[in-house]
């Protein structure tokens, strides 16, 4: 199709879809309706059943933990996939690799980042760990904290330290972290089957509401997910940085 035909087809269809959606959305309840039965049950029982004060995390990591397992596996696949999809580019520019790493160490990385990188990374690590471990109490959790932690890892990368020290497998610790984190969450689910009776059933003491060690397996799951997400996102960043660095060597 030519660009014009494609646009015409899309615009006509979009108008049609807008009309259809308009009719459908008009049937939704307003902001003054009562909550659905599922939602109101969770809202009124989550804290007493789970002792975690953040009912969103209670849903994500307990009532619907299997959803979150599949979601964590998606992150796992994304990290593995980014490595796979970017792998062959690296093979090609092998010759330039050593020189690239040299180049990265010296003037190409901004001195500012190299100086303040570790400090920023430390802040990000503290913040990330806090958000991961307090997911069951306050907004946050393994995913959000994990992404923040991954930026810390990237700051270390961009500061040129890890890459410069790279030998054969600079990314191995990240690969292990993301896989072990994902496996850990699945094993927590399996723990429910082994120590209780059903996959993902809680098998730890619930503790008292509001304390750090409460809500049974939820904080543990958050830590596993945090490790996985931090490793996975850092891996994706690192793969792209790797691409950038090596690409420069190959093309100039």
């Amino acid at each position, binding site marked *: 199709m030519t660009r014009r035909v494609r646009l015409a087809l899309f615009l006509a269809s979009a108008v049609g879809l807008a009309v259809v959606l308009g009719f459908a959305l008009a049937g939704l309840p307003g902001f003054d309706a009562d909550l659905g039965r599922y939602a109101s049950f969770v809202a009124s029982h989550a804290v007493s059943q789970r002792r975690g004060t953040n009912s969103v995390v209670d849903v994500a990591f307990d009532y619907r933990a299997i959803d979150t397992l599949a979601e964590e596996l998606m992150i796992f696949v994304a990290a593995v996939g980014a490595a796979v999809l970017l792998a062959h580019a690296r093979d090609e520019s092998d010759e330039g690799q050593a020189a690239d790493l040299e180049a990265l160490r010296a003037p190409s990385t901004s001195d500012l980042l190299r100086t303040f990188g570790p400090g920023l990374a430390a802040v990000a690590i503290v913040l990330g760990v806090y958000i991961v471990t307090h997911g069951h109490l306050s907004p946050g959790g393994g995913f*959000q904290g994990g992404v923040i932690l991954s930026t810390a890892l990237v700051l270390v990368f961009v500061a040129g330290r890890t890459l410069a020290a790279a030998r054969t497998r600079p990314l191995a610790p990240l690969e292990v972290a993301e896989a072990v984190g994902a496996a850990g969450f699945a094993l927590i689910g399996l723990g429910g089957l082994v120590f209780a009776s059903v996959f993902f059933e809680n098998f730890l003491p619930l503790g008292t509401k509001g304390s750090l060690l409460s809500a049974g397996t939820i904080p543990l799951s958050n830590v596993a997910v945090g490790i996985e997400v931090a490793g996975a996102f850092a891996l994706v960043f690192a793969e792209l940085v790797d691409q950038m660095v090596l690409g420069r060597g190959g093309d100039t």
Partner: protein
Amino acid sequence: MIAVQWTALALTALAGTVVVLIREPRRQTVASGVFGLVLGLLFFAFQAPDVALSEIVVGSVALPAMVLLALAKIERSE
């Protein structure tokens, strides 16, 4: 609806449209980061702090970082 929600909704629609209309990738990435922040604000206004935090770390930190790294690669080979 209260004023904050109205404002956040209007800003969201605007920012989303701007992201689509900017065709220059680097500026678009910046716009996309702003869009992520605006969405985060909207989600706070809709009493969803967990989602807001997620959207901010993904939409304004992780995604723009990935895009900029990818762009650096794409443009460098030109």
